[in-house]
């Protein structure tokens, strides 16, 4: 049972929950901007933000202004968007594939992105971070194209699509390993490992600008199809009997998830766990219907990843733990609680 199930008027409750989530997100982002090797007071953070937005011209040290606005705020906002995007993709794939284990990388997107990124890092094709992202993006979409091709445009049913995703993941992981072992040295291997586990280091405002468009566009498209997603509860044929154009919806939504995931992976690497766990947590809070579940997942994912990013920077002195490590270490105990409390009552 979800908490929202007990209430007939779910929309009012959802508005309250989303309001609370927005406040929590704002607090998380503020903390992310304040906490770090160089600590900055919350009041200074606030002024730095209003300065950056051009609302005020408060007199604060330029170094603090720069750290908050140029480094930490963009990083925190990208983390929030990445968390929201991955969570939405997880919701969509769990619904379309009717599989509780589905997550954004099940269609081979992360494996493809890794191959693309590794090709750039190790083989040195192109140069700079832009070409790294481009490589990851091209790789991610190649993997998705392969899955789409193997599953007849994702129309041959959930299991077939998952198998196609497994095949694509295996192939691209093998390609990655091949490239690394044949032409890599120790330092390069370490770079690759870091990439695979995800990192928010180096993200700046242009990344945010791209991601905000992609994630919000994805969320809007998914919300427009929320009703249809609900209709998949009892399977494809049942959805068709309820008047849903199954093949078209599937292809559009797989396309959207591939686009959002590929964009995220190409910026910050393959951050695991968020897309798997957050939808389950959100479902526990607001129930399984997608008009509520999608915004709730986006909110929970955003907060979760911002907090995880803070943790990744403060846990070890002078070092940043890969974000994927943190999401798993923070996420698993949290997930265990949900699993325990939501266990079937016999």
């Amino acid at each position: 049972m979800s908490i929202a199930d007990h209430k007939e008027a779910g929309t009012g409750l959802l508005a309250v929950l989303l309001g609370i989530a927005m406040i929590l997100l704002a607090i998380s982002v503020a903390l992310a901007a304040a906490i770090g090797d160089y600590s900055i007071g919350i009041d200074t953070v606030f002024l730095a933000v209003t300065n950056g937005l051009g609302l005020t011209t408060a007199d604060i040290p330029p170094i603090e202004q720069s750290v908050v606005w140029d480094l930490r705020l963009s990083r925190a906002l990208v983390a929030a968007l990445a968390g929201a995007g991955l969570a939405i993709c997880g919701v969509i794939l769990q619904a379309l594939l009717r599989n509780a284990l589905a997550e954004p990388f099940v269609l081979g997107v992360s494996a493809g992105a890794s191959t693309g990124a590794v090709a750039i890092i190790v083989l040195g094709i192109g140069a700079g971070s832009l070409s790294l992202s481009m490589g990851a993006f091209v790789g991610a979409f190649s993997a998705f194209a392969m899955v789409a091709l193997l599953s007849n445009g994702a129309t041959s049913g959930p299991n077939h699509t998952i198998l196609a995703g497994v095949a694509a993941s295996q192939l691209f992981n093998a390609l990655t390993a091949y490239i690394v072992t044949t032409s890599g040295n120790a330092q390069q291997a370490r770079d690759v490992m870091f990439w695979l586990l995800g990192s928010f280091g180096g993200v700046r405002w242009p990344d945010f600008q791209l991601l905000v468009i992609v994630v919000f566009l994805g969320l809007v498209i998914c919300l427009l199809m929320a009703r249809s997603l609900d209709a998949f509860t009892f399977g494809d044929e049942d959805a068709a009997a309820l008047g849903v154009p199954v093949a078209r919806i599937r292809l559009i939504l797989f396309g959207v998830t591939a686009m959002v995931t590929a964009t995220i992976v190409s910026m910050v690497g393959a951050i695991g766990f968020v897309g798997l766990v957050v939808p389950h947590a959100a479902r526990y809070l607001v129930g399984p219907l997608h008009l509520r579940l999608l915004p709730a997942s986006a909110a929970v994912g955003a907060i979760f990843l911002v907090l995880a990013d803070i943790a990744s920077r403060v846990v070890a002195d002078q070092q940043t733990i890969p974000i994927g490590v943190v999401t798993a270490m923070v996420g698993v105990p949290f997930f265990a609680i949900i699993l325990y409390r939501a266990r079937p009552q016999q």
Partner: protein
Amino acid sequence: MTIVAKDLVWGVRQKTIVADVSFTVAQGETLGLIGPNGSGKSSLLRLLAGLKQPQSGRVEILGQDIARVQRRELARQVAFVQQNAATDTNISVRDVVLLGRTPHRSALSGWTETDRAMVFAALERVDMTGHMAQPWQTLSGGERQRVHIARALAQTPQVMFLDEPTNHLDIHHQIEILRVVRDLKLTSVIALHDLNLAAMFCDRIVVLDGGTVRACGTPEAVLTHDLLRDVFRVEADVECASGYRPHIRFKAN
């Protein structure tokens, strides 16, 4: 005629599953679809409901060729009840039945009072209003089937297709479900395995064998000793007292 099937042909790869089937169903009629395993009952039902596209031939429902009707438009007039449709989702009975309102609402409009009233009426029809807030997972097989029928009713269809709705139910619930369906004021086509239930609840029966129609007519006319032997390969006596539905007694030897 509410449903007209004309020269329907459908198959997979080289194998023809439904071979040149034609029949009609009148308004308000309850038509039984019987036949041995693999005779094409389920496939034919899906062709009629527009869930599969025939290789040739066509289906008309309420005077319109369903191949030319949009899915959503069709779902407002035609409901389909699968056998044992299952889910892992932890969804409440009310929300399952609300799914039946999907074809009547656009993407962003919320549920209206009408929708809620329809859901309540549908649950009332199958005697499940007491289970509204109950999670789907906690329902018994018979309750689930009744909720599926309620969901189909919430679509407010004029035509309903049911694929072996009595599968896995005890005899009380089998009779209960079919009584509900028979008493509905809509046209329905039911695929059934139990010949006696088909005889009891259907106005007419279509017998499928190897994808073709072997017989079509009232239970008395169709369920004969010879047909049961030829199609179902069983020896049976058919008792048919005047004023009563035929009753089939199968012989062990």
